[in-house]
Structure formats: C-alpha cells, structure tokens
C-alpha cells in the first residue's frame, strides 16, 4: 500500500510537470509565430507617393485659358463643385472627370513599389468628391494607407480628404 502511494505521488509530480511544459511550449510557439502583416499599414513612403501624385502637373487647363492644373488643384475644383470645363489634350471635361482619368493613367502606367513591396493595386477616394473614385489592379493582400487633407474654399471651407491604398502581395518580403 505504501509502495503504491509513493508511486502515485511520483506519477502525480511527473504529470504536473509534463502539463506545465506542454502549456509553456504551446504558448511560446504561438507567440513566436510570425504575425501576418496588417491589412492597413502606414508608411512614410506611401505618404510621399500620394503627395507626389497630388503635386503632378496635368495636361489639363481651363477651356477659357490659363495655366495647367496639378492633380491637387483638380481635386479641389471637383470637391468645390466647380462648373468650369477643362481641356486635357484634345478632350474637354469637368474637373472630376479630368482628375479621375489623370489619376487612373498614373496608376496604370507607374510600376510603383512602396517600402520595397511591389504594388499590384491602387484605390483612391476623396471625401466631398464621390465622383473621384479610382480602383486599379488587384485589390487584395496587404496594403499601405495614406491620406492628405485639401482645404476647400467657400462656401463650405471644409477639407477634402484624399485617401489612397496601395495593395501588395501579402507574403512579399522587403
């Protein structure tokens, strides 16, 4: 009886230690597993990319004459609900259509990479200007998100926020 009791005690100790070891291994295995990249990430390079796009001078100018407008100015005109017509090359259109087509052309032609990740899709929207909505390429995977505020004129004196997402393959490494 004493022998059996001793054996039971030893087995009990061993069992407890084994359970603790297994729990510890499982816990650390989970904590060491490389976490998947967030779907939305901030990147200073993505911010610079968006600012460069907004600063780009288009080939659009007012049909009545004047200087060529930047993408930012076209977006502002669209958000201000301007009725001015713009001539882009041979085509006359509104500020919203001109902004849309210019941004689409940039995304289609530019082989961009952000933070050393190859971009395979873009998405750009503007608050206060719902007619500017560009979606090019593959909209899946991980993404960098960037936004810029453009102050608007009267009567709203609001801000139009330009939001851009650059999509890249989820498992691509820098």
């Amino acid at each position: 009886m004493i022998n059996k009791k001793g054996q039971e005690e030893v087995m009990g100790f061993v069992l407890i230690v084994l359970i603790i070891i297994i729990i510890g291994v499982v816990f650390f295995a989970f904590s060491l597993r490389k976490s998947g990249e967030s779907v939305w990430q901030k990147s200073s390079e993505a911010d610079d990319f968006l600012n460069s796009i907004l600063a780009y001078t288009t080939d659009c100018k007012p049909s009545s004459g004047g200087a060529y407008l930047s993408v930012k100015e076209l977006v502002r005109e669209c958000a201000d609900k301007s009725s001015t017509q713009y001539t882009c090359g041979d085509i006359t259109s509104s500020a919203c259509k001109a902004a849309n087509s210019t941004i689409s052309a940039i995304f289609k032609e530019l082989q961009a990479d952000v933070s050393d990740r190859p971009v395979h899709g873009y998405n750009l929207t503007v608050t206060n200007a719902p007619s500017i909505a560009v979606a090019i390429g593959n909209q899946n995977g991980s993404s960098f998100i960037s936004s810029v505020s453009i102050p608007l004129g009267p009567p709203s004196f609001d801000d139009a926020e330009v939001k851009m997402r650059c999509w890249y393959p989820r498992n691509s490494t820098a």
Partner: protein
Amino acid sequence: MLRKKAQLKIQEMAFVLVAVVFLFSLVFLFYARFQNTQMIEQAQVLREFRSATLLKVVAGLPELQCSLQGQGISVCIDKDKLAEFSEMQADYSELWSNSNIAKIEIEEVYPGSEKFLVYSRPANNTITYSTYIPLCAGGYQAKCAIAKIKIATITPIK
C-alpha cells in the same frame, strides 16, 4: 524501511528539480528568441526612420529644393537646379562621404524616365533607401513630374 522511504523522497525531489530546471531553460530559450526577434524588428524600424530623415535632408537642400521667389514652397526638387548640381559632384563630396553616403540618384518615374546622378563613389556594402518626390521645372508656373530619390548608404561590415 525508513531508508528506502527517504531514498524514494530524494529521488522524487531530484526528478522534480531536473524537470523544473529543464522547464526554466526552455522558457529562457524561447524568451531569448522572442527578444531577439523584437530587437531585429526595432532595428529595422530605426533604420527606416533614419533613412526617411536622410532623404528629407537631401531633398530639402537649398541647392535642390524648389523655390518661389527665393523661398522654398514645398518638398520638391527643382529640375533645373538638379541638372546643374549634378555637375558639381566634387564640390560636395566631403559632405556626402562624412554622412556615409555612397550614391544619390534622382529618377523621374512619371511621365518621363530621366535619371540624374547627384553623387556616387565606389562602395561594397550598401543599402538603398528611396522615396517619391515631385520633380518640378519651369520656375513660377512649374510643371511637376513624379520622381524617386534614392540614397545608398554604407552599412557596417558584419
């Protein structure tokens, strides 16, 4: 009988101690591995932050920055200044070499594809950082393109 009981107890304690030591060494191993991963990630974040700062410093040089009547207007590079600056590599070589910079290049990516080499010197272990920046030409009514500024810095030999 008593001796056997004591021996059993001692053996019990020995097994428990071995198991506890094994457990703690396992815990320490995993903790060290976890900390190592964290430190590598932090080093990468710091390196990227430093590179972003370096890029802004180069892009903000008065010799390159866009200007409107003598005042910098935004973060952009003047194409005309850049073309001239590319001819003056020797004058600024000491500045770049003291900053561990091996190469500075500005490449227009849209709509054109012109390249400007600002500075270059031979180097073995380098890492290149880049970001996008407007490249403007034409003075007051400047026309701006999208360019990429790339800086290769010398890394310590591992």
